[in-house]
């Protein structure tokens, strides 16, 4: 297909632009923002339309449609003339926009050709697809070579990758490797059976766990069915046992009926016997009322009266004895009245306490007095020894130890001071001598200089130095005089220093004397002491002095202790006197006197009498109480006797007799009648036992009831005898078995009720399982799909490489070898790696070793070759190059234009550029230039 030209009605900034293209090499020149991109989009839009190609069912506009609306309100659209591969010229007339989208395809003759093209549901006619065999996306990636694609070709590897991408995917930027990487990443995200943290394995595990749970729930249901069968079987067994037990109980009923019949007969006999006894008792006669039941009572009362008489006598005797004892005790109590605790105002314990305290204090006081006497004797001895000491040591306030230490210390200090004073004196004397020498020296120098001055003046005046001017002589004399004065002044200063040194020396002498005197004074007192005591040295004196001091301290201690002992003795005496006064007062209250010598005897007497008085009082109280008790008993027994006698009289009167003997005689007469009554009562009790609280009529009704029950049975049971042990055993066994079965049945019912405890409802599990399986199926489908996609792409890519490489080899060789004649062969490997053979050496060289210009040519050769392979072979696809050489230098541009010039012989090329130097190259290659104004 060749674009011949056309017109832009309105498209972005372009309006009314007439286009003319040559069939080969075209160059569209425009400065930046001059409309190159707009024109490219116009051409693409004219060829492929405005609808989105991925949604052929829908009329959805491509994004650029809004962007390239005409700026000046011109009609949005244009006209494009093309010559097809078969030589036919067609004219495309298109309008764009939301309401537009019209395409008119006409032949050069004006005939409508629209019907010749397939129309998509969105209304688009597949014009370019039909002729070029390329969908719009593929045309854009293969038929349009953009600046970025070419500029990025940094090295041969990049070229190879881009060519591989183009060959495989039709897009330089889309590599199969990246596509496979994306699929592998997605597959990794899904995971596998060996990846427990990935969704696939987790979904699989969840589904498996839910299946297991469902199976468990179904097993539980199966068990439940079995348990329901067990429950029903047990229910049947219980029913059977209940029936058998009812049969056994029926047999028992028959036996009990017989037993009841016998019981009724016995009861009838007893009733008859009781009636006979009543009749016999009536015939025996009762002789009126007689209190037969009082027989025993009368005997009891009679015995009680006798006993009461006996006890009453004894009580009265005891009472007399106690009264006599009480009198005696009263006398004793009066005698000891003064020793009563209340009289003495103290009890025995207090008296004893006071006495013990007094005795103790007296003993301690005596001990203190004895200590006092001993200490006094010792103190007198020590005082005598101290009085015998020499006069100088008697002074108690002299600290001989301190004197000794101070004397020693001061002596040492004085020794040092005297030595220092001597040194000072010697030094002062030496200084004095030196000062004197200095003074003399300065004085002599002053005199000499004065003499010189005088001599000089004199000699001048004497005309000895006539050649020396007078001023010089006077000046020299004045200088000598000044120096003499200075020396004299210095000698006076030295004289003052000599006087000062003398005064210092004198002070040092006086100091030395003072020190010597002080030393002598300090040692004199100690010397006297040693002389008086006869001690040979200072140590002996100090020991002696220490002994004296110790004896003085001992004496002081003894004096102090004497004072303490005296005070203690006085306190003890005071306390002893206090207790003595208490004891004396108590004795006085009891009528006793005391002195310290007989105090112990008197206190003992007092305590003895107080104890006696207390005992007598206690016994007197006991006797009084005993007497009162005996009085009470005598009165009570007298009353009781009166009461018993009254009872006896009443009973005898009731029996119409006067004595108990008469009563007993009458009672024996009445005994037989009572025997009959007793027998009657015995029979009545027997009747009551047998009747079990039921009347004879009641038993007869019960028998009738049993008869009715037995009659109701269709097949009366030939029952065993009543209380037959075998029947009862059978009944018990049945009851026990029934009980066991009932328990089992209850357990079975409970088991059935709890059959599904701990299990989720089956529906819940099924629902969760369905979701889990759905998730797993989705993940499984994804996993398999990704695997299929990966595998398919790998295989197809490999096959495509193998298939494309030779075709590409041919296409590239055609182009490349024509331009680069130093090479005679190009080989494109399946991985799109390229090698070339040098014509001169016949060596194969990898394309990476080619020059930059040759690599560019190789790239373009391969791109055009791929375009050949992908597009329809019958219709050379025009190629648009959008500023492809922006980064090229002049040499590379020249090489590239050779390639383009060559390619323009095969297909139409339209280069869009803003570089003016390309105009010259275009002119050299016979390119048609279209200039767009800014």
């Amino acid at each position, binding site marked *: 297909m060749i674009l011949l030209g056309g017109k832009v009605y309105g498209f972005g900034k372009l309006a009314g632009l007439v286009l003319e293209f040559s069939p080969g090499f075209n160059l569209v020149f425009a400065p930046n923002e001059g409309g190159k991109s707009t024109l490219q989009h116009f051409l693409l839009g004219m060829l492929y339309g405005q609808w989105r190609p991925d949604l052929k069912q829908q009329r959805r506009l491509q994004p650029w449609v809004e962007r390239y609306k005409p700026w000046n309100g011109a009609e949005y659209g244009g006209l494009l003339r093309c010559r097809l591969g078969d030589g036919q010229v067609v004219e495309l007339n298109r309008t764009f926009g939301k309401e537009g989208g019209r395409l008119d395809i006409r032949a050069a003759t004006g005939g409508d050709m629209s019907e010749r093209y397939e129309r998509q549901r969105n209304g688009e006619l597949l014009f370019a697809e039909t002729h070029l065999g390329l969908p719009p996306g593929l045309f854009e990636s293969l038929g349009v070579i953009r600046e970025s694609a070419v500029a990025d070709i940094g090295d041969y590897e990049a070229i190879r990758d881009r060519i591989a991408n183009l060959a495989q995917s039709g897009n330089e930027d889309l590599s199969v490797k990246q596509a496979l990487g994306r699929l592998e990443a997605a597959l990794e995200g899904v995971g596998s059976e060996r990846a427990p943290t990935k969704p696939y394995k987790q979904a699989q595990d969840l589904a498996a766990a839910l299946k297991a749970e469902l199976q468990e729930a179904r097993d539980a249901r199966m068990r439940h069915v079995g348990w329901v069968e067990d429950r029903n079987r047990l229910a049947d067994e219980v029913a059977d046992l209940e029936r058998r037990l009812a049969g056994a109980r029926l047999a028992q009923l028959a036996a009990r009926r017989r037993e009841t019949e016998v019981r009724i007969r016995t009861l009838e006999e007893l009733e008859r016997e009781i009636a006979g006894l009543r009749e016999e008792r009536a015939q025996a006669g009762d002789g009126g009322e007689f209190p037969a039941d009082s027989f025993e009572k009368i005997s009891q009362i009679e015995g009680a009266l006798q006993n009461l008489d006996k006890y009453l006598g004894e009580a009265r005797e005891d009472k007399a004895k106690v009264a006599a004892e009480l009198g005696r005790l009263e006398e004793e109590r009066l005698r000891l009245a003064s020793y009563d605790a209340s009289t003495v105002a103290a009890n025995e314990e207090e008296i004893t306490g006071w006495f013990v305290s007094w005795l103790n204090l007296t003993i301690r006081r005596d001990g203190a007095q004895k200590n006092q006497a001993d200490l006094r004797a010792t103190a007198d001895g020590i005082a005598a020894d101290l009085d015998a000491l020499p006069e100088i040591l008697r002074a108690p306030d002299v600290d001989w130890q301190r004197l000794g230490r101070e004397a020693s210390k001061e002596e040492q200090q004085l020794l040092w001071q005297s030595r220092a004073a001597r040194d000072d004196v010697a030094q002062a004397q030496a200084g004095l001598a030196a000062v004197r020498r200095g003074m003399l020296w300065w004085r002599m120098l002053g005199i000499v200089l004065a003499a010189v001055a005088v001599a000089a003046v004199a000699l001048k005046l004497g005309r000895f130095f006539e050649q020396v001017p007078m001023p010089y002589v006077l000046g020299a004399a004045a200088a000598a005089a000044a120096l003499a004065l200075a020396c004299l002044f210095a000698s006076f200063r030295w004289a003052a220093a000599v006087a000062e040194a003398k005064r210092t020396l004198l002070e040092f002498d006086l100091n030395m004397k003072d020190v010597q005197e002080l030393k002598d004074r300090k040692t004199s007192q100690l010397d006297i002491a040693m002389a008086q005591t006869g001690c040979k040295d200072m140590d002996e004196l100090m020991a002696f002095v220490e002994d004296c001091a110790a004896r003085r301290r001992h004496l002081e201690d003894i004096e102090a202790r004497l004072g303490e002992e005296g005070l203690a003795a006085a306190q003890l005496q005071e306390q002893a006197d206090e207790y003595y006064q208490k004891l004396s007062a108590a004795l006085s209250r009891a009528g006793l006197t005391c002195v310290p010598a007989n105090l112990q005897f008197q206190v003992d007497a007092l305590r003895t009498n107080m104890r006696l008085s207390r005992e007598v009082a206690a016994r007197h109280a006991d006797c009084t109480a005993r007497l009162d008790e005996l009085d009470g008993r005598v009165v009570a027994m007298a009353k009781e006797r009166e009461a018993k006698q009254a009872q006896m009289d009443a009973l005898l009167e009731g029996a119409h007799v006067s004595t108990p003997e008469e009563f007993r005689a009458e009672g024996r007469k009445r005994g037989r009648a009572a025997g009959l009554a007793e027998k009657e009562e015995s029979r009545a009790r027997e009747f009551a036992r047998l009747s079990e609280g039921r009347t004879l009529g009641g038993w007869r009704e019960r028998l009738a009831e049993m008869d009715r029950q037995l009659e109701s049975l269709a097949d009366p049971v030939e029952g065993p005898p009543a209380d037959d042990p075998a029947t009862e055993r059978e009944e018990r066994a049945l009851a026990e078995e029934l009980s066991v079965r009932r328990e089992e049945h209850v357990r079975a019912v409970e088991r059935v009720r709890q*059959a599904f405890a701990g299990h989720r409802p089956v529906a819940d599990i099924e629902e969760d399982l369905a979701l889990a399986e759905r998730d797993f199926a989705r993940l499984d489908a994804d996993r398999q799909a990704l695997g299929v996609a990966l595998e*398919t792409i790998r295989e197809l890519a490999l096959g495509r490489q193998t298939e494309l490489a030779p075709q590409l080899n041919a296409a590239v060789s055609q182009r490349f070898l024509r331009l680069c004649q130093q090479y005679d062969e190009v080989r494109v490997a399946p991985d799109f790696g390229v090698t070339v053979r040098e014509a001169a050496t016949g060596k194969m060289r990898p394309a990476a070793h080619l020059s930059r210009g040759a690599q560019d040519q190789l790239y373009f050769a391969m791109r055009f070759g791929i375009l050949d392979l992908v597009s329809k072979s019958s219709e050379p696809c025009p190629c648009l190059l959008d500023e492809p050489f922006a980064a090229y230098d002049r040499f590379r541009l020249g090489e590239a234009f050779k390639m383009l010039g060559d390619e323009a012989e095969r297909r139409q090329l339209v280069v869009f550029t803003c570089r003016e130097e390309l105009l010259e190259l275009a002119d050299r290659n016979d390119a048609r230039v279209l200039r767009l104004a800014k």
Partner: protein
Amino acid sequence: MKPVRFIHTADIHLETGFSGAGLPSRLGGRKREAVRAAFRDILDAARREKADFVLVAGDLFELGRVTPDTVEFLKQQFASLAPVRVFVAPGNHDPFIKGSPYKDDPWPGNVHVFGKEEFQSVELPEAGVRVTGFGYARPFFDGRLFQKLPALPDDLCNIVVAHASDMGRVPEGKSAQGPFEVGELAGKNIRYCALGHYHRQRRLQVPDAGVEAWYAGVPEGSGWDEEGPGGYLFCEVGDGGVRVQGRVCSRFDLHSVEIGCDGFSTREQVVEALLRHRGAELQPNHILRVRLTGTPEASLDLAFAELDERLAGECLYIRWEDRLLPALDFEAIAGEKTLRGEFARFLGECIADCDASGGGGGTAESPFRREVLERARRYGLDALSGREVRLR
């Protein structure tokens, strides 16, 4: 004749599962409770309206899932209804077989279960009614049961209850349990025929004008073919004829909505489109199936968790169905002379092969295989087009 009032219900399916509807168990549990509540409502209505009896035309529960708790629930509910009689005609899901609570458990005295595969009658002379029922004694019954029904005596008002399939209008995917033709109901002195098995409430056109035959429908829908409210029938038979009222008792209705997503580029557009159904399908007590169709922009990211979060409270649950078409022209791509085109061609052929083998009696694997190939084509083209491979 004194009017007879009764309730006709069927296909309660207590303890049924909702896995077929794709509901999670948390929602399934709520639905099951709703089924129980609906059943309680039915019995409450019987008490309130002083019904003479209640008819249950099969599938009261699901035998494979019934628990002691369910059985006790039924017993208590039926016992509390006494003295109102309850007639149960077991169906294929609750057949009268060994292991069935009908057979193994004692039921309250007011409950009568038709336990034989033949029509049996119970007369209620005080109401002037004869109830004739048929019970399944196996999980699948394909006999023509109404052919076994003789003409009933006309001394009483004859009510028939059975679980059966009207072969004149079999719903899609429904098994033919107890098949019959409506003509078989004619001429047998039936006044009212209470049917179960089909889950949609509907009246049968019986040639005999004197016969009124109805399917009661489900009280609570359980699948996407049972959308909308569920209920039961309240019937009154008197001299004036038969009066049937459909009553609603469902709580959580199922509804489907289709959202065309052509050109959608964000989730917000999906939400907005769905919110337009507010008040109709979109209600707080509804369970929704939202089918997304059309061709959205590639930027649309259907993160369903986020969509659920955004629509929380608008309805009880949403089951999303992604039926979106990719913005890819497979045919055009297959025309390319590139690896991409070759890939699209190859997988297109594989899918066509799969369709051909599936159409010709393919195995159950075929749909899955097709799905795998579809996905492989989509993921492969995404990868080859330089796009991120986004799993569906």
